[in-house]
């Protein structure tokens, strides 16, 4: 699958882009996280959640959308 990832917060800064397309073989979110990290090792130590169709994906959630949002927590106030 060719998936468009949209990076939010500091992730876009860490990766130097707001979004990108990656060729993905994972079937669910848990595997997808590992697969993203192999493509983008800068994300290995970061905390983030994936969302598709505006819903946070649990590790067993199957990938159904070709657009996925990648959200880190923010600390600033």
């Amino acid at each position, binding site marked *: 699958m060719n998936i468009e990832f949209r990076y939010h917060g500091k992730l876009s800064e860490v990766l130097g882009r707001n979004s990108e397309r990656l060729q993905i073989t994972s079937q669910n979110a848990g595997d997808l996280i590992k697969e993203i990290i192999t493509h983008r090792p800068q994300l290995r130590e970061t905390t983030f959640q994936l969302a598709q169709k505006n819903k*946070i994906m649990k590790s067993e959630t199957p990938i159904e959308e070709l657009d996925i949002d990648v959200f880190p927590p*923010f600390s600033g106030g």
Partner: protein
Amino acid sequence: MNRYQRHIQLAEVGASGQEKLSAAKVLVVGTGGLGCPALQYLVAAGVGKIGIVDGDRVSLTNLQRQVLFDEKDVGLNKAIQAKEKLEALNSKIEIEAFPNHLGLENAEELLGKYDIILDCSDNFVTRYLVNDICVRLEKPFVHGSLYKYEGQVSVFNYQSGPSYRCLFPDPPKSGDIPNCNEVGVLGVLPGIIGTLQATEAIKMILGLGSPLSRKLMHYNLLDHRQRIIEFSRNEGEIKKIKDLDTISLVDTNDCQLETQISIEELDNLESTLFIDVRELDELPRVEKVNVSELPMSQFSKEIKSIPVEGMKVFFCASGIRSNQALAKAKKQNIPNCYSLMEGADELETWLNK
């Protein structure tokens, strides 16, 4: 004329809604960019009892977004100054100021006294502490947080809804990219997000509309794109926190550190070594005291050059890199290290007084 006339005129609020507001007790943790606007609207709305927790002092760089404060407040405690300003706005409500950092020693007692908590803090240690205490007390809290041009808002623990840990079970690891490496923020962003936090608190008090429970609102100021992301309660995470004998602070690479010192607390300048962790081209250079230069870019490599003897005060432009330096020094077990809460500008001004 009733000062809340425009509320009372709303059919969904009315006199009974206004009474609910005046019976409500709301605690605002942090009086920074988020806390200032949130407090203004809560106070203006007539929330009957409002608590303000903040152990920090106002600095000059706060004034770009922390709209309750003015130049005369620089150097003074934020909670106390905020209370003074807010009492001028509404003298008919009760406002309590707690001029301390929220910590394990005071959090449970403090949060326990209020119905709704607003997490307007600026670090993960406080955010997870607020969450964990609220989970154990089953108290709703409104989360607001920022990054540069983006913000997040959510209501946690509301009517058996999810908590912050259901969304982010653990804080970023200590090895993660620092969360506050002097990150900039457009001053209006906390105005928007803090106002949304006050909105959610007021809606909960009035039973109006649907609070952002089970939903994370993500807002990007650059294109005004908003996204509402749904998520669900994770019973395992909730149970983990509820079952703990005592809670502890999370370990994360963060702004908040316990050994901060403010200019006002400095004495024995002759025996204090000031360590400037800014890069060498950053101005003003401070010269009136005993200063050693150890830029963050060289810090880890040169950390062994820090003397073990005597008091050391790290400083930078705003107190953030100096916190990181402090964390590194602590890891190396270098004793008597402090991080200056203010920046080089304020230090220089103070030394020239």
